[in-house]
């Protein structure tokens, strides 16, 4: 048996934007690497837009009785902030990293359905543009990111904003479903022939499990959105209580999608963390099987907990009790993962790169978010704190302190592979410290604001003891984060101007994407290293001390 399996493919670089047909080459591309990079740019663009919206919100709330912007504009901005960050930043960023890395990590040269892949990206892009087009049609949606009926119905939201919200989200939803179809089929059919399912890198495993969540959850949202659109455009009655419909039903549809969506956004983040921590601890992941199995447990539980978003609706005690218990259960597989990551670092030889430090921030802040989440599973506490700033603090601890920190970690980790250049560690540390300190300043205090009674989505507030100070500090934290992002952009800009110097495997990592050149040529692999364990490149480099053979 030869050392390498030959795959007959030609070598060609990814087209340069500056060349004659470069732009056309990108727009018409079906290459998973180019599409992945476009997803990441899309996510960065909307991250800046959504971030500026957040800055406007914090500016408005920084002092009592403020009227910096009008209440109508304020409602539009917080709605667009939430919708943008979830559907146009976190989703494309995770799907983008997945699209770029999944084929590389399993030794494939392409996605199973390259054209479907391009379709998914452009649908997501179109959905985002349509959502923002609403600003030019008389007003953006203003009913919150979960768009509760009947506020979102024609009687109470008469501009076209909510219509653009429904159409935009249906399109991005179709894009996400397309991406999920590709993740499932690619993982199952295009792996290196030697790679068994039990040998998948954890990031790929989490994307794979996650794809099933996307495939089951997004159609529920799309059905609800279509009904909403038919209500608004064709005078149907689905969610209008005054004419026989049910507003609660919208909540059921939204959250039966919305809670799996929470896991859709966190599972790939877990995957990134599970790749970065072992490499920078120079130890294989502690308890691979537990990390992989607890992912499946989370995915299965994900569909049985959505009512905990609706405890205040007034369900029976039996229903509330059941969903309180199932929501508490989710803490177990999640806790297992945190223990595994800590176990991986224990006695490891840790390298404190920016990527690794983002993982450490993730571990701490995500755990805080998980604990405040568990407090919402307790029905009486939920009744007290629902729709206060405590919820705002919680959602930001899991989405920003969790998912976004993991995406930053992944960006610093895979940037040499994607761009062929190292992001500056110096600017990276400025980014890290400003962002993490600012994040905790902004959102830790919002827990207290929530407990002392500040409702979420409030336009302004009177002079009350503590409110002004806490809100001002919270806004100052936002400025810190803003500065951190500025350093990140500067880092990206200066790095991309430098020549390509990255080696194939700068971090001494072990998964297959590091066996290609940095950046990979258009055809990823012309030959694949043998795969006998979960760390093929380790085995290649240390033939005297290989991992246990799994095939």
């Amino acid at each position, binding site marked *: 048996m030869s050392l390498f399996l030959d795959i007959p493919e030609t070598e060609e670089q990814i087209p340069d934007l500056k060349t004659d047909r470069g732009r056309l080459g990108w727009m018409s591309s079906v290459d998973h690497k180019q599409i992945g990079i476009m997803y990441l740019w899309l996510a960065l663009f909307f991250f800046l837009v959504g971030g500026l919206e957040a800055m406007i919100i914090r500016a408005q709330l920084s002092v009592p009785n403020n009227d910096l912007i009008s209440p109508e504009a304020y409602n539009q901005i917080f709605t667009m902030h939430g919708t943008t960050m979830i559907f146009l930043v976190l989703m494309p960023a995770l799907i983008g990293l997945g699209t770029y890395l999944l084929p590389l990590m399993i030794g494939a040269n392409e996605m199973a359905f390259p054209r479907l892949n391009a379709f998914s990206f452009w649908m997501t892009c179109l959905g985002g543009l349509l959502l923002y087009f609403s600003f030019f049609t008389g007003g953006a949606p203003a009913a919150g990111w979960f768009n509760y009926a009947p506020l979102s119905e024609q009687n109470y939201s008469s501009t076209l904003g909510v219509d653009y919200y429904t159409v935009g989200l249906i399109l991005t939803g179709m894009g996400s479903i397309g991406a999920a*179809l590709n993740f499932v089929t690619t993982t199952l059919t295009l792996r290196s022939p030697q790679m068994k399912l039990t040998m998948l890198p954890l990031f790929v495993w989490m994307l794979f499990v996650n794809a099933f969540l996307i495939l*089951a959850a997004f159609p529920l949202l799309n*059905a609800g959105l279509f009904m909403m659109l038919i209500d608004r455009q064709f*005078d149907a009655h689905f969610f209008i209580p005054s*004419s*026989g419909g049910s507003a609660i039903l919208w909540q*059921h549809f939204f959250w039966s999608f919305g809670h799996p969506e929470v896991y859709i956004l966190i599972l790939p983040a877990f995957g990134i963390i599970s790749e970065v921590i072992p490499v920078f601890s120079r130890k294989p992941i502690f308890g691979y099987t537990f990390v992989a199995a607890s992912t499946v447990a989370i995915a299965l539980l994900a569909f049985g907990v959505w009512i905990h978003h609706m405890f205040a609706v007034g369900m029976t005690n039996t229903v509330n009790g059941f969903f309180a218990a199932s929501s508490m259960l989710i803490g177990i597989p999640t806790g297992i993962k945190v223990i595994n990551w800590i176990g991986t670092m224990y006695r490891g030889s840790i390298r404190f790169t920016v990527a690794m430090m983002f993982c450490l921030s993730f571990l701490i802040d995500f755990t805080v978010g998980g604990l405040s989440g568990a407090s919402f599973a307790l029905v009486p506490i939920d009744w007290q704190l629902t729709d206060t700033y405590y919820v705002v603090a919680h959602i930001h601890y899991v989405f920003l302190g969790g998912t976004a920190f993991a995406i930053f970690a992944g960006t610093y980790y895979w940037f040499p592979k994607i761009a062929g250049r190292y992001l500056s560690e110096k600017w990276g540390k400025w980014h890290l410290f400003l962002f993490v300190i600012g994040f905790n300043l902004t959102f830790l205090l919002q827990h207290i604001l929530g407990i002392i009674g500040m409702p979420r989505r409030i336009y302004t507030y009177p002079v009350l003891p503590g409110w002004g100070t806490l809100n001002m500090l919270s806004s100052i934290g936002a400025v810190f984060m803003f500065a951190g992002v500025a350093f990140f952009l500067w880092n990206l800009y200066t790095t991309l101007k430098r020549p390509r110097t990255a080696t194939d495997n700068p971090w001494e990592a072990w998964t297959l994407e590091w066996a290609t050149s940095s950046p990979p040529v258009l055809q990823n692999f012309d030959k694949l290293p043998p795969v006998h364990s979960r760390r093929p490149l380790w085995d290649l480099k240390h033939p005297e001390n290989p991992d246990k053979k799994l095939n």
Partner: protein
Amino acid sequence: MKDKGKLLVLVLISSEAFFFIALIVAYVYYRNFTNATDTVSANLDALRSGIFTLLLIASSFTLLWGKKALAKNRWKTFKIAMGTTILLGLIFMVGQITEYIGLYNKQLTLKSDVFGSSFFTLTGFHGFM
């Protein structure tokens, strides 16, 4: 599974099922968990719709027959089978359209009440997508 096309369609259809589950859940919810009385079901002709449904199901068998003929390069059989499939599909559509016209003549419309909304949305998505 090594046939990626088959796998894709299998997964896509499973995903589509969730879309229709949501639409069906809406109908069940209005019927069983609200005080409203179902205005549409009393006006439906189950036997007539049943026959059209059987024709629709039959079309999937003729499609399969056509596919097998194509695999064996038997063009004449393929054309007959595909023609029958399209014809059966068209008959189903005609049945659905005449049913809709009948309901609209009885003032049962998308706008009339929540059961009208639910019925036309659910069957509409099924028939025309």
